[in-house]
């Protein structure tokens, strides 16, 4: 039976978010004390407290499936965010910028119009990871009503709604494959046919009194 060394553990978990003894932590280090028998772990918890204790092999790596979620950024009105797993070469076994990335549909609009957006950031903190672990989605109608207040809102793991650069009255419906249609309080118009069935499923599952039409 191979026992992982401090180097192995560092390579896998240093600077990653993990669950340890049911708490969400960021791992800083692993090391052996002088006797070389007992491994120690150094980590930071959600309160920002750095702790150093005997490591009891209980790190639970965190990795999610690709999904939309709503995050809270102080002073920002851009909660809707897409989490995507990456397949590039790296060693981190748990949530880190090496194996995952955050994206936001509205940022594409900013970029297309030649603007930058200082209200959104692609790195994440404890609040974001908690939001990923337990995502909360507003009702479709509430999200649409809130849209002028928020620029983008996730309404399900698959979909988000955001402000539109095409219309004053309607909004854009987004999936992980980009903008797929326009929507308002009465109608969802699907412009990318491949997304139709899933939107119909979403409307049916949420029992929304909403018309879905295809205009692709």
């Amino acid at each position, binding site marked *: 039976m191979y026992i992982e060394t401090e180097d192995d553990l560092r390579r896998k978990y240093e600077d990653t978010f993990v669950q340890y003894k049911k708490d969400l932590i960021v791992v800083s280090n692993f090391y052996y004390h002088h006797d070389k028998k007992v491994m120690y772990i150094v980590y930071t918890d959600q309160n920002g407290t750095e702790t150093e204790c005997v490591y009891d092999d209980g790190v639970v790596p965190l990795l999610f499936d690709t999904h939309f979620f709503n995050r809270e950024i102080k002073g920002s009105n851009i909660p809707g965010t897409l989490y995507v797993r990456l397949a590039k070469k790296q060693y981190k076994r748990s949530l880190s910028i090496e194996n995952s990335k955050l994206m936001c549909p509205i940022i594409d609009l900013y970029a297309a119009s030649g603007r930058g957006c200082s209200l959104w950031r692609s790195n994440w903190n404890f609040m974001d990871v908690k939001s990923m672990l337990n995502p909360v989605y507003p009702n479709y109608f509430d999200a649409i009503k809130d849209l002028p207040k928020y620029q983008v809102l996730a309404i399900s793991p698959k979909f988000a709604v955001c402000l539109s650069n095409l219309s004053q009255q309607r909004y854009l419906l987004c999936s992980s494959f980009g903008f797929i249609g326009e929507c308002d309080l009465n109608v969802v118009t699907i412009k990318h046919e491949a997304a139709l*069935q899933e939107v119909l499923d979403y409307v049916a599952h949420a029992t929304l009194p909403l018309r879905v039409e295809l205009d692709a």
Partner: protein
Amino acid sequence: MPENPAPQIPAGVFFANTNDEFVEIPRHLPPVRKARKELKPGQIDLEKTTVQELFDVHPPSKLSNEFANKFLTQHTELIPPYPYKFKDSQSLVGIEVEVENVLRIDPNITLGFWSIHEDGSLRNNGREFKTSAMPLRYTQPALTQLFNGLNDSVDFSSRTSIHVHLDVRQLTLSQLYGMSFTYGAVENLLFKFASQERRKNIFCVPISESLGLAGVNKAKNMVSFLSSIEDYWSKYSAYNLLPIANFGTVEFRQMCGTNNVTKLLIWMDMLSRLKIYAYKFHRTEIVKQISGLNTNSQYRGFVDGVFGDLAAYLDTSNLLKDMENTTYVIKNCALNNVFHSRVLSTMDLESNFNDLFKTEVSNISKLSKTQKECLSFLKKDIAPSMTLEKFYLLLKHDPIVYDLIVSKGFQQHYYHLLQPIAYAAPKFKDE
């Protein structure tokens, strides 16, 4: 020292004793080197160009049939009493088997089908065993030889896995897409068969999660996506397309470390059936089939169509959950999202997104005298009917207007207007 030491056997050849004579049989067929045929972009046809032609992949170093047959006649213990019947026993595969705690290796292993390699990711006397390209029908004796030739206490830890390279050189680019879409739709079922734990492994990321095939929409077209596959694909995808450029193979990384030969044979048979399905149905037909999947029975029908009798080995107890998301991903990757491109190339000033920047209009009052002159000049030429405020906003944020300005040679005006520090004011004719 024994009195009659065994003769030294040179690597790569096999000695068959016939009539008390040694006969040399090369282990591998020498690769046939054809003259390089460089394809120009216009010559690449999605429907006609094969993977081999696109990447100019040379035939692999392939296990010779003559050698394999001779080897098996001398190692009859490797001939299975009930040989596994592959649907396409001629299909070429290459196998990589990672094992830990390797304490004994039968020397015959390297004389037959395998070569031994070090692997930095393995611990505890870990070794990687690789075959050259070989027809599926030899995989059973090859795997039997390998696992019989190692100590019983070998460890298939979570660090180990088994990768299978499937030869796709003869597939057209369209058929390769067909195979990739078919794989994508059934990816979760294959993970369940191979190893559900591998799904969360960072070295085996499902394509439905990494959205690898979504790159098709980002590339100029389907041909350029494959031509520049290294720009769009990552090695640690469960379905690794990168080797098509070097070896003409697709690598399947889902299988966990195991010495269960039957499971591995079924696995490779399943993978070869993805290729057969791509030969059988055109890419557009496959996309149509996948797009039409919506009910449990339709999912079941598709799985049966792809895997035939092997579908019985797949866990189809929750098809809706396992295939709903993957088919959604494949549909979206296969069909170009024109609307997304339209949104990004359009800028309607009367939109709720642009309302966020209404305050920018008032910034015109902050422009210098020469900047205002530049603005009036450009507006007069490009959008005479528009108000100065709207035109200023359009100028700042619409890439099409910028292109128009460049085509008319007014860049100097544009840059002076928007970046007054770096660019001097242009001289007007009437000045």
